[in-house]
């Protein structure tokens, strides 16, 4: 029916999507289990490929008649998919509580619980990644977990930007043929042969999957007169791209979506990023527009249909992980603008349409990012700000002036790849299509390490001996002694962390090879090597530094009050910390009021953050990861500052035991940035960019009034221009009224589509845990003065 307007179509689909309940799904888990049982003797990579192919053949599928982009990995939308090969333990423990847990709830059907426990669990026990790591290294990991939290232990890696351009140029058929050719080469190892065979199997599966949609569309067309034309057109598209590389814009977008659905079916992981979609889709768009076969309105409708799709896949995490990454961020990150291959500012119609789609839909996905640089047009800048002003927290901004050179200089990345960088997940920086960045390898809690340095290696919360006993605040005679002890604790835990990371990587290599993904990551095909085994051109590992703001504030207090002004003794401070400041109101008041804080453009304090982050980063360069690549650092936490804070006792900056750490990663502690946003930028600008080569996060909240007028938007543009000049890698804004949030907490049903930025991503506010909601409400808000 041609009369369906864009708004109508999109609203209808959106409403229908949001109304659907989320369920846990074991459909694919059952298929995978069966295939593994039937093929016990085959190599893991072949089993994985066969399991994916079977899922592509057998999983139930569904289509909405109004959709212009079809496909999902389960029949229902936003289902939580169980992947027993990666993680089983937690699901068994949480089957009963998934529907009621505080964060990211899923409904569970009674029959599924039974099937899971009787069919799936018995097979995978002791075989899944989680089980194996736990059996072999469980104690080792948990001994260091309060300082170094090791990630990727119970799910596939994800966090990668596939070569979408290659996928669109070739399609599954040509990729399959390429693998078949490779298989004919001489001197292949067994492993290589299996790798190519696995790719062929998965590409077969991909083609079958697309044909199934084509068939279903035809069937629906036969019964549905209203949308017959639409359905038949879609059937043609799906059939065509199953066998050919896409030609039209519509085909290209549909093909792209299938790519991401299948990647999700193979890995069930967070953060497969489309990257610079306005660049690689533009040729298709331009060709159709020039031919007259596409108009802008149709193009925008297709884009908005895709935008809806990005919201239909969510990622089910265990309860603990859901605390760290609340709101099931799935991390479809799209980067627009930026630089072209010659270093000139890039933008096109699609950049603006993506912004428009974000403005129209206001949903949490995709995670839209704008790459800014000195030559970004005023138009793109102001349009982006106008979309931010709508309050969905998007787009977020990245800074080419900070990122490109850093990638080249500190990660040895080729200039052409650095110019073409994109973002995975929330804020993690990556090159496109050729990089297994392993950007979420671990989080290192510097504040816990400092706690151990102050308290003889003992945990303030439990009294347990966790680190080395190098001394305590009661024994150090000078600030240098304290610093040396802090460094000692960092070194001690870093060694253990690196070992653990290698063990996790080995687990992924052994158990979760990913042939479909490898087919779209450059160099894997050439080398005949799976991406988990180091097949990608770049192989990095990122460790997050948690949290430099609290470290700066705490160290500043220790330095000034104990060692410089001698207003309190080390022993007094240590006792106050042990007592969580109970009975020490004067010390508490002094640490809060008498010492400058990070984020206020006070150089000596900001430099403490730089010093310790640099210490950490420098130490890391002494190690290589398990795939032979470099370690580097990021400064972002998503929502991990809350649980990470729960692990830390009272800190010298006046933070009470178990309270959250600073949010963001580069941001000051909330409420302590009294000198305003320009001072925050100056402070954050002091962090060297090699510290955030894995991604940095600066979070700022503004009231909507700030953007209310054209004047306001212009001033905001000036603010961002200076942000670019100061070479800060990232910034994002929350535009909210406190009252909005309080109201939303009370009446969630009225605010179902209200989104907030939790950190590097946007989530539905009403779906966040109450504690996190309060925390967001309490965050600093800037008012224009």
């Amino acid at each position, binding site marked *: 029916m041609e009369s369906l307007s864009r708004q109508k179509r999109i609203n209808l689909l959106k409403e229908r999507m949001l109304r659907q309940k989320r369920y846990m799904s074991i459909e694919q888990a059952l298929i995978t289990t069966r295939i593994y049982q039937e093929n016990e003797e085959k190599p893991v990579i072949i089993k994985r490929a066969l399991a994916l192919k079977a899922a592509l053949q057998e999983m139930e599928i569904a289509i909405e008649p109004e959709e212009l982009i079809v496909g999902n990995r389960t029949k229902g939308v936003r289902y939580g998919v169980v992947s027993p090969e990666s993680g089983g333990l937690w699901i068994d423990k949480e089957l009963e509580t998934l529907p009621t847990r505080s964060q990211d709830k899923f409904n569970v059907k009674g029959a599924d619980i039974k099937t899971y426990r009787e069919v799936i669990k018995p097979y995978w026990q002791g075989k899944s990644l989680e089980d194996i790591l736990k059996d072999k290294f469980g104690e080792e990991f948990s001994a260091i977990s309060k300082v170094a939290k090791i990630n990727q232990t119970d799910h596939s890696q994800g966090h990668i930007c596939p070569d979408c351009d290659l996928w669109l140029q070739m399609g599954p058929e040509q990729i399959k043929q390429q693998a078949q050719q490779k298989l004919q080469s001489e001197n292949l190892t067994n492993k290589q042969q299996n790798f190519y065979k696995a790719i062929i199997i998965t590409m077969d599966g991909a083609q079958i999957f697309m044909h199934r949609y084509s068939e279903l569309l035809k069937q629906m067309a036969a019964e549905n007169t209203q949308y017959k034309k639409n359905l038949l057109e879609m059937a043609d598209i799906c059939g065509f791209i199953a066998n050919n590389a896409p030609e039209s814009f519509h085909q290209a977008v549909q093909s792209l979506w299938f790519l991401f659905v299948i990647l999700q079916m193979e890995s069930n992981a967070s953060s497969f990023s489309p990257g610079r979609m306005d660049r690689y889709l533009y040729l298709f768009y331009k060709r159709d527009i020039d031919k007259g076969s596409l108009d802008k309105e149709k193009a925008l409708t297709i884009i908005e249909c895709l935008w809806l799709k990005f919201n239909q896949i969510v990622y089910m995490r265990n309860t603990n992980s859901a605390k760290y990454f609340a709101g099931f961020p799935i991390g479809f990150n799209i980067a627009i603008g930026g630089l072209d291959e010659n270093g000139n500012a890039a933008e096109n119609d699609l950049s603006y349409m993506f912004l428009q789609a974000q403005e129209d839909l206001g949903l949490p996905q995709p995670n839209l990012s704008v790459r800014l640089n000195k030559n970004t047009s005023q138009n793109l800048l102001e349009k982006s700000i106008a979309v931010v002003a709508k309050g969905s927290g998007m787009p977020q901004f990245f800074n080419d002036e900070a990122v490109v050179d850093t990638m080249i200089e500190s990660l040895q990345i080729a200039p052409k790849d650095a110019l073409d960088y994109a973002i995975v997940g929330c804020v993690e920086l990556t090159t496109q299509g050729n990089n297994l960045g392993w950007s979420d390898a671990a989080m290192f809690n510097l504040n816990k390490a400092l706690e151990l340095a102050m308290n003889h290696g003992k945990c303030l919360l439990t009294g347990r001996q966790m680190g080395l006993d190098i001394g305590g605040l009661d024994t150090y005679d000078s600030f240098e002694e304290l610093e040396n002890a802090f460094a000692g604790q960092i070194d001690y835990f870093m060694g253990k962390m690196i070992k653990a990371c290698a063990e996790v990587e080995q687990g992924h290599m052994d158990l979760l090879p990913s042939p479909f993904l490898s087919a779209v990551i450059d160099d894997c095909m050439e080398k005949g090597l799976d991406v988990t085994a180091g097949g990608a051109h770049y192989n990095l590992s990122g460790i997050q530094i948690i949290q430099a703001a609290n470290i700066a504030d705490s160290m500043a207090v220790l330095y000034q009050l104990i060692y410089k002004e001698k207003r309190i003794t080390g022993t007094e401070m240590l006792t106050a910390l042990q007592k969580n400041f109970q009975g020490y109101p004067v010390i508490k*008041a002094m640490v809060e009021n008498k010492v400058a804080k990070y984020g206020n453009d006070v150089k000596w304090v900001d430099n403490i953050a730089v010093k310790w982050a640099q210490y950490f980063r420098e130490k890391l360069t002494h190690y290589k990861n398990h795939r032979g690549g470099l370690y580097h650092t990021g400064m972002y936490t998503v929502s991990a500052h809350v649980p990470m804070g729960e692990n830390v006792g009272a800190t010298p900056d006046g933070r009470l035991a178990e309270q959250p750490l600073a949010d963001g990663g580069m941001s000051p502690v909330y409420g302590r940035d009294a000198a*305003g946003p*320009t001072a925050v930028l100056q402070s954050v600008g002091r962090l060297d960019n090699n510290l955030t080569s894995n991604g940095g996060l600066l979070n700022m909240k503004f009231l909507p009034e700030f953007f209310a007028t054209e004047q306001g938007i212009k001033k905001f543009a000036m603010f961002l*221009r200076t942000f670019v000049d100061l070479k800060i890698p990232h910034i994002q804004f929350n535009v909210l009224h406190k009252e909005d949030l309080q109201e939303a907490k009370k009446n969630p049903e009225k605010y179902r589509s209200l989104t907030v930025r939790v950190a590097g991503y946007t989530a539905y506010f009403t779906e966040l845990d109450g504690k996190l909601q309060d925390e967001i409400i309490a965050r600093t808000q800037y008012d224009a003065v």
Partner: protein
Amino acid sequence: MKNRALIFDIRRFSMHDGAGIRTTIFFKGCPLHCIWCQNPEGIEKNARLVHFPAKCILCNYCIKLKDNAVTMENNKIIIDTSKVIDAAEYEYICPSGALRMDSKYYSSDELMTIVKKDMPFFKYGGGVTLSGGEPFFQADFIIKFLEKLQLAGIYTAVETSFFAVWEKIEQALPFIDTLFVDFKIYDNGKHKKYTNMDNILIKNNIKKVLQSKYSNKVIIRTPLIPKYTATKENLSLIAETLAKWNKNVNYELLNYNPLARAKYQHVAYDYCFVEDKPLYTQAEMNSFYSIIKEAGIKNFR
């Protein structure tokens, strides 16, 4: 303190006091005393030690100092300003920041260091605004300071009541890029009643500046205070007079600021409203603007 100025606040990222992203410096001391004053802490011309009860943790450190200027009665801190010998010592000793000077002296170099921190932002059109209190109350200082700012390439703005000697204004004008002048009440009797000073000097200065070569960088403002300034009569008289002096005058009406009352708990004055009045709505603002339009104003903001 000739070459230093008494400042009661410095705000970076100030958005409403001129173009772009600005730093606003608030000079202490004002010859007027408007009963609706939005910055009452800026009226008094001397620096004072003040106590913020909400921050106080009742630790008694302050009452132990030798000058006995601070005492405590029923958990209430009382300051005898006349006895204070070294106010800085009180500031240092108070662990919570509850005892604080309400203002501080700065040399122009010190101020330059502070404002220059935001130079990277001023580059795109912001600058420095001098406000108060009444900046011309410390006229000799600001004239030199404005010149320094301009030499440093910083765009300058001044907000003034214009209750000042014309010669000083004239000396400052070359270094000011935008001058915001309040014209609050037309009727002299009422002006005197509500601001404590009569408006003859102010009117003369406004007339002179509007008829000078600097007129195009002047913006006249009337703060809309319910009952006091926001009346049809007052606004049309002001507008007519302005238009008579210079038909191209820039004139702006400022909406009432409902947040001022909170500041009065730290000063010895009373606020003119018991209850907070709501902001004027866009419709009300429009009808105020049509009054001044009718009276002959062409350039309004």
